[in-house]
């Protein structure tokens, strides 16, 4: 595997989307290539930051109520 091939696999490696063989070859490459290892590490950390830092908003109670109501009417009544 060369650097171009490795770079194409970085996001899939970060997201656990590589096949078994791809993963083996990718890990072998980044164990020897500092540049690609750096790219991989950056991408992985960026993903963690997004996961940890972006706040998830909760649905307001009014919306919860109306969805619950929507699905506790018979379809004939609702539509």
């Amino acid at each position, binding site marked *: 595997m060369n650097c171009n091939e490795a*770079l*194409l696999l*970085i*996001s*899939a490696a*970060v*997201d656990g*989307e590589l096949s078994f063989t791809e993963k083996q070859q990718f890990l072998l490459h980044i164990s020897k290539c500092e540049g690609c290892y*750096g790219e991989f*590490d*950056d*991408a992985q*950390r*960026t*993903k963690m*930051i*997004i*996961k*940890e*830092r*972006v*706040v*998830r*908003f*909760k*649905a*307001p109670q*009014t*919306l*919860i*109520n*109306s*969805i*619950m*109501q*929507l*699905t*506790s*009417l*018979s*379809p004939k*009544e*609702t*539509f």
Partner: protein
Amino acid sequence: MDKPDPAQQRINMQTHELLSPAEHKKQIEFQNEAVVHLHALYNYALHITMNPDDAEDLVQDTYLKAYRFFNSFERGTNCKAWLFKILKNNYINIFRKNSKEPGKVDYDLIKDFYHSIKDTRRDTTEADSDYFHTMLHEEVYQALLSLPEEFREVIQLCDIEGFTYEEIANMVDSPIGTVRSRLFRGRKLLRAQLEGYARTNGFTTDTDQ
């Protein structure tokens, strides 16, 4: 939205009793499979519309459609992904294709929200000297907002919502290879933004070249 009206609730109770066993079963299954993703759908709707009223409308409409077509949901597949796909189509139909002017983008609301929670969740990795681990929620969110939509979208679906590449590819109507490369480029752009903030705030990082 209106408060539940007692008269209406009585009617609901009555119709509930009149439901056929099949409809009753559908309801229960819908609650367990679909309604449990309400918060995730609302959160995503809010992030794409940036307006609470539009987000509520979008989610309402999504659940109406989902309930109506619940029989076409392939059992055993990811219901959350199915709902997101409906939501996305709704969004395109309602806001892109002509019919509705989107509501005013409410940046202030989002900003205020981030201000009100700042620091409260900065508890995990404080010992770590890496500035990125102590980045404020608001800065990260601003960086995300600065990305072109096609990159922001896949990052949200992957990193925030946890969908697989196959599910994302289906939602954005693109091949998996496109999802892969958008994620790669999107994260690089995001990283550059965050490094910009870090420098502005007087931090230098090991990873700077």
